[in-house]
């Protein structure tokens, strides 16, 4: 035993407390080890740290929140970001000679396609098959049908039937074990005819080239994402969403990369690249780099989020431009929905992006031949790949096309917010571990803690049941709702969801009293400890999968978690709590997004947009397996209800 010189007045070991005064020397560790182990074993330093953290808990939390937000805003500042660079050696230089000559012919094909589309009133399958066959491809079709859980009012579809047409250009130079995909959606109306024309033109041109080492699949998919989902499921023999599709008759090798093309005008002013995919997944950054490199080489204006990059990063307007671009990416990623047809490829470990032609009022126009050359160049480079794209980043944010923020730079922003939760949990733990003097003997503790378990479990279970109801009921009850109320199915679903959400606010608080009588002071602390840790784990996992969603949720939920106690002014806190709840976060996000897109809406329109966003979110879940809706309904909302419960603890 080594008795140190410091004097202590604490009682040895209050149950589980951090600051144990006495620590016996044991034979377990040799002399001197104690000094190195520092915080974990030295009781004095340990207690100093704990008392510092508990005493300054609130200021440290506020500081962390402020620092987290500042860090995040700082990410868009150009000196703090990295310049993009090509990591993949196989795509290293842009030394490819692009010779695609026949833009005019592609446009003519596009017009022909448009005429046939109009005649058939949908996808001109026969014409496409014939045209692709004439260009020397192996052509196959896939039919699919899908009944949506409720009508999609944005795209006006309910029972969807369609056909995908795809042609495979077999690789002449390699054993056909790998493939690339170029896809163009067959959209209703006058959209995307040029894209299909260019696709067919490129197919014709690629057929005459000899250097293809990967199969190239030219895909025209009907009903945009639904068709794409059917085709991808068919290609990979999976069925995750219960869609009916006919099996594919022909397939190429494993798909290495895919580009989706959207082009609706004969000439364009700029090309936009869309990266955000399902559940906020992004393709490897090298794909964006490749696009950027070729745009630079060929001299096409390129944008991301529809925004050109500016060189005046040191001016206020330049910085705010970068922030807005990054915020757009964050909002789009957080929504968890695929923002282009490429979005579903990412689930299958295929790097994909959508390239969209934009025709604005700018003077300088680019013709389709140039776009074709750009695509040719990109495909030539992708053709050179020796392995899957993996060298560059998968986790990034882009304030402009030439700069990016990698995970190591943006995670601290989230980390600073998450630390608040841990500090709060620590504070609660210390409070719980050093109870008032009367409960000094073990007997008192046991008697006191046994109702505690029940009073924590009840709100937990009830909140989660409310969450489960929010997840299950809206789609189940649409028929009943339509019968009894003058609403359409879609409105029924959305309004049921909102109703259950609101009912949830009334339901769970005070429910613990049914089983356990009066809530104790210890009771809410335990519940809050559980809720805070739950939220921390939840947000941590979310941020790993989809940083933007995790960060936005943390931004609103962390303050709630930090300040809620039963002793704060009820009405005011209730209002704050409701404003910071997930549903309002979504509402603000809708307005904020419109603001960023420079299409501000009135409150009326915003509300309608909000309703349609909810229905789209639910549809995304059922159609493509997006996880945002179940995450919010089954986890985040119940977690928020726990804090609501604490506020009304009696």
């Amino acid at each position, binding site marked *: 035993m080594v008795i140190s010189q410091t004097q202590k007045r604490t009682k040895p070991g209050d149950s*589980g407390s951090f600051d144990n005064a006495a*620590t016996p020397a044991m034979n377990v560790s040799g*002399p001197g080890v104690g*000094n190195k182990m520092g915080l974990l074993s030295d009781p004095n330093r340990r207690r100093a740290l704990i008392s510092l953290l508990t005493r300054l808990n609130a200021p440290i939390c506020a500081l962390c929140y402020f620092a987290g937000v500042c860090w995040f805003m700082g990410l868009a500042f150009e000196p703090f970001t990295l310049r993009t660079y090509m990591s993949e050696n196989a795509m290293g230089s842009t030394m490819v000679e692009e010779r695609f000559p026949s833009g005019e012919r592609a446009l003519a094909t596009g017009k022909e396609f448009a005429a046939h589309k109009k005649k058939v009133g949908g996808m001109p399958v026969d014409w496409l098959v014939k045209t692709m066959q004439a260009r020397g491809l192996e052509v196959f079709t896939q039919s699919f049908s899908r009944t949506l859980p409720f009508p999609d009012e944005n795209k006006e579809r309910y029972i969807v039937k369609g056909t995908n047409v795809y042609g495979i250009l077999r690789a002449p130079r390699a054993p056909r074990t790998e493939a690339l995909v170029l896809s163009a959606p067959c959209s209703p109306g006058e959209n995307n005819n040029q894209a299909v024309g260019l696709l067919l033109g490129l197919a014709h041109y690629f057929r005459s080239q000899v250097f293809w080492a990967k199969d190239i699949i030219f895909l025209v998919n009907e009903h945009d994402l639904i068709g794409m989902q059917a085709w991808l499921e068919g290609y990979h023999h999976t069925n995750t969403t219960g869609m009916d599709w006919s099996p594919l008759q022909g397939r190429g090798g494993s798909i290495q990369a895919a580009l989706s093309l959207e082009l609706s005008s004969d000439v364009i002013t700029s090309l936009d690249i869309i990266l955000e995919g399902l559940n906020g997944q992004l393709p490897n950054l090298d794909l964006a780099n490749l696009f950027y490199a070729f745009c630079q080489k060929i001299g096409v204006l390129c944008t991301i989020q529809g925004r050109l990059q500016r060189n005046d990063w040191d001016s206020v307007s330049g910085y705010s431009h970068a922030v807005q671009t990054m915020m757009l990416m964050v909002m789009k990623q957080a929504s968890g929905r695929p923002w282009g047809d490429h979005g579903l490829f990412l689930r299958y470990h295929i790097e994909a992006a959508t390239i969209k032609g934009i025709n604005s009022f700018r003077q300088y126009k680019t013709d389709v031949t140039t776009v074709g050359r750009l695509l040719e160049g990109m495909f030539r480079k992708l053709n050179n790949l020796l392995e899957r794209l993996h060298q560059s980043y998968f986790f990034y944010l882009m304030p402009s096309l030439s700069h990016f923020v990698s995970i190591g730079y943006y995670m601290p922003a989230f980390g600073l917010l998450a630390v608040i939760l841990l500090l709060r949990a620590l504070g609660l733990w210390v409070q719980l571990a050093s109870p008032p003097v009367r409960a000094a003997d073990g007997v008192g503790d046991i008697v006191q803690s046994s109702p505690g378990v029940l009073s924590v479990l009840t709100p937990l279970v009830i909140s989660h049941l409310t969450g489960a109801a929010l997840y299950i009921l809206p789609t189940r009850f649409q028929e009943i709702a339509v019968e009894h109320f003058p609403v359409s199915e879609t409105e029924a679903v959305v309004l049921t969801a909102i109703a259950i959400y609101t009912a949830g606010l009334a339901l769970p608080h005070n429910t613990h009293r049914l089983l356990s009588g009066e809530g104790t002071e210890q009771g809410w602390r335990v519940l809050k400890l559980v809720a805070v840790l739950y939220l921390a784990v939840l947000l941590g996992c979310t941020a790993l999968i989809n940083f933007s969603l995790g960060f936005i949720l943390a931004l609103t939920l962390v303050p709630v978690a930090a300040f809620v106690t039963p002793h704060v002014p009820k009405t005011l806190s209730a209002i704050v709590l409701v404003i910071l709840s997930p549903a309002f976060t979504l509402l603000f996000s809708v307005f904020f997004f419109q603001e960023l897109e420079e299409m501000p809406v009135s409150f009326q329109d915003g509300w309608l947009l909000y309703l349609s966003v909810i229905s789209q979110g639910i549809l995304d879940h059922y159609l493509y397996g997006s996880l945002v809706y179940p995450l919010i309904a089954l986890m985040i909302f119940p977690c928020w209800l726990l804090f609501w419960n604490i506020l009304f603890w009696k």
Partner: protein
Amino acid sequence: MAASLSLLVIVAVTIRAALFRSGLAELIAERVEVVSPITAWKRVIEGLALLDLGVSPYSGDVFHETPLIIYLFHFLVDYAEITFMLADVITAVALYMAVKDFNKQVFRKQKFSVEAERYPADCLELIRSPTEMFYIPLKVAMFYLLNPFTILSCVAKSTCGLNNAVISLFVLTTIKGNVLLSAIFLCLATYQSIYPLTLCAPAMLYLMQHQYVPVNPRRVAFWWFVVQYLFMYLGSLFVIVCLSFFLLGSWDFLPSVYGFILSVPDLTPNIGLFWYFFAEMFEHFRLFFLCVFQINVFFYTVPLCIKLKSGPAVFLMFMQLAVISIFKSYPTVGDTALYLAFLPVWSHLHRFLRNIFLVSCVLLACSALFPVLWHLWIYAGSANSNFYYAITLLFNVAQILLVSDYFYAFLRREHHLTAGLYLKKKDGSEATLVLK
């Protein structure tokens, strides 16, 4: 108490049955955290199919369970779900009874000590009261049956649940003082996964204390007891191995089960420490590090036995189980669940625990992060094995911290029971003890 235990069992069985019926069961059975190459039910089915075809189940390097398991399921394959639920219930009930008995003994011993005035006067608050000990057996059963790790393991039909049942029966028979049954169940456990071999030491220690045999290597009685126990143990091991041979008609199972456990050829990621290390290593170091890693599992027996030879051997058993489940070659969460079930037994140590908050937060976070990082690595392709291994490492460090914290708390309580709770320095002021 019996009523609450049956209620608990009913709740536990209901949860399991519901999960078996849901679509989650298939998903869980694929999780690498829950099943290892040895315990996976898919592989048992494969082995059964081979056996039915008249081929040795060990041909083809898929099946690695012991012959007894495959013959057990040869008859029970249609009732597999019930078997696994039953195994969990047996484990829980055995632990319940064992802990109840153990607590009685602890209390009796404490009463003698108090009557003999062996404890210092200020240690009264360290003495355990019957009211606080009353619910401990039930809590143990609850910790096992309602632990999500156990539930997952059971729903995945991981044969780990059967191993746990055998080990818990061993604990029960040992605590009841039945030497022969203890040896037989220990032999069964060893036969299943080798590592319980190290439980030999605490078992002998406990039985010696139970039968008042002096724990002193210089006494003949000590050695006579050791020889007796080892004879029973090795004898039943011999019988059971021979039985396997006669059932199977070949010695195939020895390299395929024990060789597989010891030489770790399957580097599928799991929650253990082996896979990443051996996947990264140069081939010519493999044998050396294999020996180091495997000796590591067995080595802790010696210092722990020396340190805890006078204390309750059940604590030693707990330590051993924890060490096995952390350092074994193919650990699953089912192994972790078994030693976690013992935690309520040591609830009187809570006041001396130092890192319990930190450790439980880390364990909680890691359990949630395992599937997330697996998803990012395998499905999304955006993370890589380092992410997953980092969490594995953190999970194991947290487990080690947890166990060493309990060890420290145990020793500290023992120290206070002899030296008094409020330590004074020579000049009469209060003192601080520092770990050096």
